[in-house]
C-alpha cells in the first residue's frame, strides 16, 4: 500500500495507538480466523460419520473420483497463483495485467465450481447419493457445498473488481486494498480446500473404490 492511500484512509492515524495494520485488513484477518471454526465444525461433522455404517448407501468415501478431484484441486491451487500475480501487477501499476490476472482467477474459480456441479450431479444421478441418503452423505454435501458457496462469493468479488477496473480505466490506490482483501479471502478459501482435499478426500476414500 502506498503512503498516500494510507493517508486517505485514516487522516487521524498519528493520533492513535495502533497495530499498524490497516483497519479493513485487520478486520478481514479477524473474520478469516473465525472461519476456521466454521469449516472446522463441518469437517468434524464429516469425520464423525465417515467411519460409521448406515442402512442405506453409498457413502461419499466409497464413490470419490480421486483423479477428477485432484485435477479440480489443482485448478483451485493455481488460481492462488493468478491471484497473487494480479496483486503484484497492481502494485506495479500495470492495470492491464491486473485485469488479465483477475479474470484468470475468476475463470479458474469458475472451472472449480463447474467441477463441483459435475461431481454432485454424478453422485446424485449415477450413484444415487443425495443429501438424504445417509448422514455421511449429508455431511459431505453440506461441507463441500458451503465451501463452494465461498468460492462463488469470491468469484463474484473478483468479477466486480474486474468490471470496476474496466469501467474506470483502472483501480485506484483506494481500491488496491480492496484487491488485497479479496486476495486474502481467495487464498483462505484455497487453504480450506487444501485441508478438505487431503482430510476429506484422500484420507477417507475407501481404497480400490475409485
Amino acid at each position, binding site marked *: 500500500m502506498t503512503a498516500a492511500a494510507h493517508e486517505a484512509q485514516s487522516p*487521524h492515524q*498519528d*493520533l*492513535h*495507538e*495502533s*497495530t499498524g*495494520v490497516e*483497519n*479493513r485488513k*485487520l*478486520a478481514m484477518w*479477524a*473474520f478469516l*480466523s*473465525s*472461519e*476456521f*471454526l*466454521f469449516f472446522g*465444525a*463441518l469437517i468434524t*461433522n464429516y469425520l*464423525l*460419520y465417515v467411519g*460409521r*455404517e*448406515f*442402512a*442405506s448407501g453409498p457413502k461419499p468415501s466409497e464413490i470419490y473420483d480421486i483423479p477428477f478431484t485432484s485435477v479440480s484441486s489443482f485448478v483451485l491451487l493455481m488460481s492462488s497463483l493468478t491471484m497473487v500475480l494480479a496483486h503484484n501487477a497492481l502494485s506495479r501499476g500495470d492495470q492491464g495485467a491486473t485485469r488479465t490476472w483477475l479474470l484468470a482467477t475468476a475463470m479458474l474459480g469458475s472451472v472449480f465450481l463447474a467441477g463441483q456441479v459435475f461431481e454432485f450431479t454424478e453422485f446424485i444421478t449415477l450413484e444415487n447419493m*443425495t*443429501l*438424504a441418503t*445417509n*448422514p455421511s452423505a*449429508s*455431511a459431505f*454435501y*453440506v461441507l463441500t457445498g*458451503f465451501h463452494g458457496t465461498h468460492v462463488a462469493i469470491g468469484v463474484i468479488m473478483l468479477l466486480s473488481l474486474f468490471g470496476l477496473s474496466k469501467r*474506470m480505466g483502472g483501480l*485506484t490506490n*483506494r481500491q488496491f486494498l480492496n484487491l488485497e482483501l479479496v486476495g486474502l479471502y481467495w487464498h483462505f478459501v484455497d487453504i480450506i480446500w487444501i485441508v478438505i482435499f487431503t482430510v476429506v478426500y484422500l484420507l477417507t476414500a475407501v481404497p480400490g473404490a475409485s
Partner: protein
Amino acid sequence: MTTAAEKATTIFRRPRAETGFWSWLTTVDHKKIGILYGYTAFIFFVIGGAEALLLRIHLASAESNVLSAADYNGLFTTHGLTMIFLVVMPMSAAFMNYLLPLMIGARDVAFPRLNALSYWIFLFGGIFLYSGLLFSAVAPPLGVVPGIPGNLDPSDARSFGALPDGGWFMYQPNAAQEFSPSLAIDFAALGLQILGVASLISAVNFIVTFFNLRAKGMRLLRVPVFIWMTVVVAFLLLFSLPIIAIALFMVTFDRQFGTLFFDATAGGDPILWQHLFWLFGHPEVYILILPAMGIVSEIIPVFSRKPLFGYAAVVFAGAGIAFLGFGVWAHHMFSSGITTVAQVGFGLTTMTIAIPTGVKIFNWMGTMWLGRLQLKTPMWFAIGFLTMFTIGGLSGVTHAVVPSDWQQTDTYYIVAHFHYVLFGGAIFGLFGGLYYWFPKFSGRMMNDRLGKVHFWLWMIGFNMTFAPMHWLGLQGMIRRTWRYDPSLETWNRIVTVGAFIIAIGLLVFIFNFRTSKRRGEIAGMDPWDARTLEWSIPNPTPAFNFAEVPIVHGLDEFWHQKYTEDKTGRPIRKPEADEQVARLEDIGINPPEPVHLPNPSYFPIVMAAGLPLIAYGIIFHRSIAGKALIVLGVVIALAALIGWGSEPLEEAH
C-alpha cells in the same frame, strides 16, 4: 471523491437529517446506535419479563390450567431466548457501542456503517424470531402454511402461535421435525442465525477499534477494564458464533432439506448437536457476564474513591475466564453418556474457572476495603452484583462435581444457579451501568432515592424468586414441565410473589427513567468525580466526542488530571483541577476547530432488511412465494452493497 460516488449521490440523495425519525434510521453515530440498542433491549426485557410472569402465574399452583402444556413450552423457551439474545447481549452491546470510543479517546468505531448494520440486523432478527407468533402453531410437516388441526390433545392447544418450544438449547431430536412439527424451531434456528450475523459484525468492528483507535499513550495496560471486557467478549463471539452457525444450519437442513445429521434412526448422532451447541453455549455464558463484570469494575473504584485493586490481575482474570471458557463445554453434558474420562476432565477444567473468577471477586472487595464508600444507586447495584453473583458462582461450582451434577441436572437448582449469575449478575451489573452512565447520554441525573427503592425491591424480589428454587430443585422439582408435585406448592407461591416484586421494581425504574430524563437534576460534566476519559467531555456527549483527541499518560487518565497523592497515598485534589474540568467542558461545547464526522447512510438498514426476507424464504421455500422471497432478499442486500460501496464514508469537505 470518485466519479462513482458522485453518480450515487445524484441517484440517492444522502440523508441529511440530524434529529427526528430519519436521523435514527440512517445514523452511523456509535452513540445513537448504542441508544437504539439500549431501548430495543429494554423493550425486549419487558416482553421477556411478561413471559416470565405468565409462567409464574401458571406455576403458582401445581395443577394449574392457566397455560396449556404447549404454550408453557413456547413461553419458557422464548423467555430464555429473549433474555439471552435480545436482552443481555444487546444491552451489553448498548454500553459497548456508546462507551468503547469514549473510553479509549476515539471519535467513533472503526467501521461506523457496519456498526449501524449490526444494529439493524439485530433488530430485524429479533422481530423475525417473534414473527413466528403470526404463524398458526401446528403446521403440517415441511413448511406449508398450516390449517387448524382437528384431533389434538387439549394440552397441545396453543394460543401463542409458533413460539419456539424446544428449550433455548433446542436438543435434538426433540427439536427435530418429528417431535416438533410446527414452524417454531425453524423460526428460532433462522432467527438466531440472523442475530449471530449481527454479533459477528460487531465483534470484528470492536476488535479493530480496540487495536487501532486507542488514543495516543493508551497502551494496552492503560485501557479501562470495561473496554478490556468488551474486546474479550468480541473475541469470544468471533470464535464461538461460527460453531453455532453450523449447528443451526444443520438443524435447518435437517428440518427443511431432508439431511440426516441428528436422525438416530438413520444413523445420525444427536449428541453431536449437544457438543456443537455447548461449544458455543458455554463461551456464550461468558459473553453474557463479562460485560457486567467490566461495568462493575468501573463503578466500584469511583464510588470507593480508590483505584481498582490489582487492575492487571482483573484484566488477565477476565481474559483467563474467556480462554478457559472454551474448554469446559461438556459439563453441560454429564448426563448425556459421555465417557468417564471426559466427565472427570471437564469437571476439572470447570473447577479451574473458579480461580480467575475468585481473583476478580477478591479484587473488587479489595477495592472497597478501606475505601470511602459512597452508597449511591450505581454502587448499590454493583454490590448487588458482587453478592448475588458470588452465590451463583458457588452453586456453579457444585455442578462441576460430576455426581452432584447428576442429581441437579434438569432441576430448578439449575434454574436458580443461572438466574443468580445472569439476573443477580448480568442484569444487576447492567442496571448499575445504566444508573452510572445515564448522565452521559441524557445530561441529567437519575433520581437517587427512587433508584435505591428500585434496588431494594429487586434485591428482595430477586431472592424471593430464585433462592427457593435451590431447595425446590434439590427436592426434585423438574425444569421445563408445566406440572409439579403438589407438596412443593407453598414455595412456588412465594416464588411467584417474588417475581411480581421484581416487576414492581421495574415499574419504579421506568417511572424514574422517564421523569429523570425530562426533569432530572442537570448533571454537569463530571457528576461522580470519575476516573475515565468518557467523563472528560460534556454531558450529553457532543456528536464528535472529543474536540481534542486526548493524549493518555496512565491508567485512570482523567483522575490524574484532577488528583495527586500525598505520602500516605490519600488523593489530594489539585488546585487547578476545577479550572481544568471547566476548560475541558468549554472546548467540548465550543470546539476550537470543526470536526468532520461520517455521514449518515440509508444502506445499512436496507441491507439488513434483506436477511429476514431470505429467512422467510427458506422457511417457505417449497412455495413460489418462498423462492421469490429468497431472490428478493438477495437482490435487496446486493443492491445495498453496491450503493454502500459507491458511497464514501465522509463527503468531501
